[in-house]
C-alpha cells in the first residue's frame, strides 16, 4: 500500500497507517514524508514500513514488531522506548535515538547525534541493539543498563572527526559498547572499563555486522577487518554510595 504524505498532518498519516495494519496490510510505503512525527509508534504487528523523505521525531517509539526502513535522514528520538522490531536509517539520525530502548534493532548508516542509547536496557530474552555507521555525539550509552551498541565511525562526515563524544558511557551499569578502531580514553565517562572482546564477543559482533551490512548494502568484511574495543560498566551500581543516606 502506498501513501502520499505530502502536506499531511501526522495524526492523519498515522491513522492511515494504523487502519492499513488493522486491515492486515503488511507492506506500507510512505512517499513525501517531511517531519511527520510518531510514525509506527506502538505498532505490534510484523509489518514493513518503507519511508521516503525525512520522518519526524519519535519514529517507531514503543513499537513491537515492525521493520521501518528510512531511505534518508531521520530526526530526534528514533526508537524511543521501542520493544521489538527493527529500524533501518540509511542516512544520519538526530539526538536521543534509542532512548530507553528495551528490545529490537536500530541500524544507522551515518552519524548519530547526542545521547544515543541513553538508558537502554535488556531483560531476559530482550536485548536491544544499536549500530551506528558514522560518529556519535556526547553521552553515548549514558546510564546504559543493557543491550549492545556498536560504533563504526566509517560512514559519517569527516569534518566533525572526534565527535565521538565526551562522557561516553557515563553512569553505565550494564550492557556492552563495541567501538571499531579504538577510542580516546579521555572521552570515557567515569565507571567504564575497556577490554578486548572475547571470542564470544567477536561472534556476536560478526553476526550483528553481517545483518547490518546486508540491510545497508555494505561489505561486512571491510567493517570486520579492524579490531573492536569493548566497553563495559565497572560496577552494576555506580551510584550506590551517592544514594546512601
Amino acid at each position: 500500500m502506498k501513501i502520499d504524505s505530502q502536506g499531511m498532518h501526522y495524526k492523519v498519516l498515522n491513522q492511515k497507517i494504523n487502519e492499513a495494519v488493522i486491515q492486515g496490510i503488511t507492506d506500507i510505503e510512505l512517499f513525501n514524508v517531511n517531519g511527520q512525527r510518531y510514525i509506527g509508534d506502538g505498532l505490534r504487528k510484523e509489518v514493513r514500513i518503507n519511508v521516503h523523505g525525512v520522518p519526524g521525531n519519535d519514529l517507531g517509539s514503543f513499537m513491537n514488531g515492525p521493520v521501518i526502513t528510512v531511505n534518508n535522514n531521520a530526526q530526534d528520538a528514533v526508537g524511543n522506548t521501542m520493544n521489538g522490531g527493527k529500524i533501518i536509517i540509511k542516512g544520519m539520525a538526530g539526538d536521543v535515538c534509542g532512548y530507553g530502548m528495551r528490545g529490537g534493532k536500530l541500524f544507522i548508516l551515518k552519524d548519530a547525534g547526542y545521547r544515543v542509547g541513553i538508558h537502554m536496557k535488556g531483560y531476559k530474552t530482550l536485548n536491544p541493539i544499536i549500530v551506528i555507521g558514522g560518529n556519535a555525539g556526547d553521552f553515548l550509552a549514558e546510564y546504559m543498563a543493557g543491550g549492545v551498541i556498536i560504533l563504526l565511525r566509517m560512514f559519517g562526515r569527516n569534518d566533525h572527526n572526534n565527535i565521538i563524544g565526551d562522557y561516553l558511557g557515563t553512569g553505565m551499569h550494564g550492557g556492552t559498547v563495541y567501538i571499531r578502531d579504538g577510542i580516546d580514553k579521555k572521552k570515557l565517562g567515569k565507571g567504564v572499563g575497556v577490554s578486548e572482546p572475547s571470542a564470544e564477543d567477536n561472534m556476536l559482533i560478526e553476526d550483528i555486522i553481517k545483518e547490518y551490512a546486508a540491510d545497508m548494502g555494505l561489505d561486512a568484511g571491510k567493517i570486520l577487518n579492524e579490531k573492536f574495543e569493548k566497553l563495559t560498566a565497572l560496577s552494576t551500581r555506580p551510584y550506590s554510595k551517592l544514594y546512601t543516606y
Partner: protein
Amino acid sequence: MGIKPSTPYGKDFGGCGLVGIIDRSGGSLSGSMVVSSLCSMKERGNGLGSGYAVYGAYPDFKDSFGLHIMYNDISAREPVEEFLKTRLRIKHSEPVPVKKLHSMNTPPEFWRYFADPPEDLDVQDEDANDDLIVGVVMEINERIDNAYVVSSGKNLGVFKGVGHPDEIAEFFRMQDYKGYLLLGHTRFPTNTPGWWGGAHPFTILDWSIVHNGEISSYGTNKRYVEMFGYKCTLLTDTEVVAYLLDLLVRKKGLTLSAAASVLAPPFWKNIQDMEPPKKDYYTALRMCYGNASLNGPFAILMGFDNGILGLNDRIKLRPLIVGRKGDIVAIASEESAIREVIKEPEDVWAPKAGEPFIVKLKEDVTQVRST
C-alpha cells in the same frame, strides 16, 4: 517619567521551534518562505507566541533606524512620539499594516518610525548613534506605560505576537515582505507569560534573537547587563541575550565567535587540556565575562545585519541543524523545516554543541550593502 509598576503577570524572570534562512548572495527571499518553514514545526509551539525578523525589509529607509513600537493601549502613542521627537529626527511614521483576524482578541497596535539621529550628532560616529538608539529603546520600555519597542535596527522589521506561526504571519501580512535574511520562531512558554512582548525575536539595534530553551543564569546575566544601562523589561529570559551580544560585540569589541565562547564557554576540564595560547584565551574569556555566560539548555539563532550565528548549549540539550544548497543556508530545530524550503539540500549537518555556527553574506555582497 517615573518607572512603571511591575506587570500584572507577577513574575519578572525567565524561561519552541526556530528557523533562520539566509541568501548569501544578498537576494530577496519572500517572507512566506520562513512562514512555511516554521509552520512545518507547528507542534513545537502552543500558540502563545510566534514571530519573524526580516533583514532587508525597508530598502527605502535602509540608512535610518526603523523603530517598530507596540502599543498595548494606543493612548501611549502620544507620549512616545513626543519623546521620540526630543531625541531623534523622524523621517516617516505609519501604522504597521495588519489584517484583523477573528481568532485574535484585541491585539495591540503597532506603529513604525524611521528616524535619524539629531543633526548635531556626528553621523560618522556609528557607536554614538547606536548608543542613542539603545537609550531611546530602554527609556520607552522602562518608563512609558503600554509601549514597548519591538525592533530598532536599520532595514530590519520584526513582527511578533501571541498566536500560532500562521496566524501571526497572516496578521502582519508576512507575504508582503522580502529580505535577504529571515528568522522565525514559534513559542512554547514555560516559565514566563505568553504575551505579545514576550514573543521572539528579541532585538536591539541590528541584533535579533530567537531561542529554544531556558536561560537558568538569567538573574546573573540581567544584573550584569544592567550595569551597562540595559534594562530587561519584557519578562522573558531571551531578551537578555540580545543585550549581551550588543554589549560583547559592539561595546566590548569581541568577535562574534569570541562572544559565542563567552555565552557557551568550554568546560574548565576541557580548558585544562588545551595548550597555550588557546588555554590562556579561553581562561581569559571565562575570567573576564563569567557573568555573561549562559547556563541552561538552549538552541539560539542570532541574526545580525550580514549573517546568522547559531549556538547550542555545551551539552546539546536542544536541537539545531543546518542545511545548504548553493547560496541558501537554513538553520532550524528540525531537518524537515529546512527541507520545507530547500527541497534537495546539498548538505545537512548538526553543529557541535557549544561551538558557534556562523553564516554570513558573501564578502562582495557586504561591501555593496555598506556603501
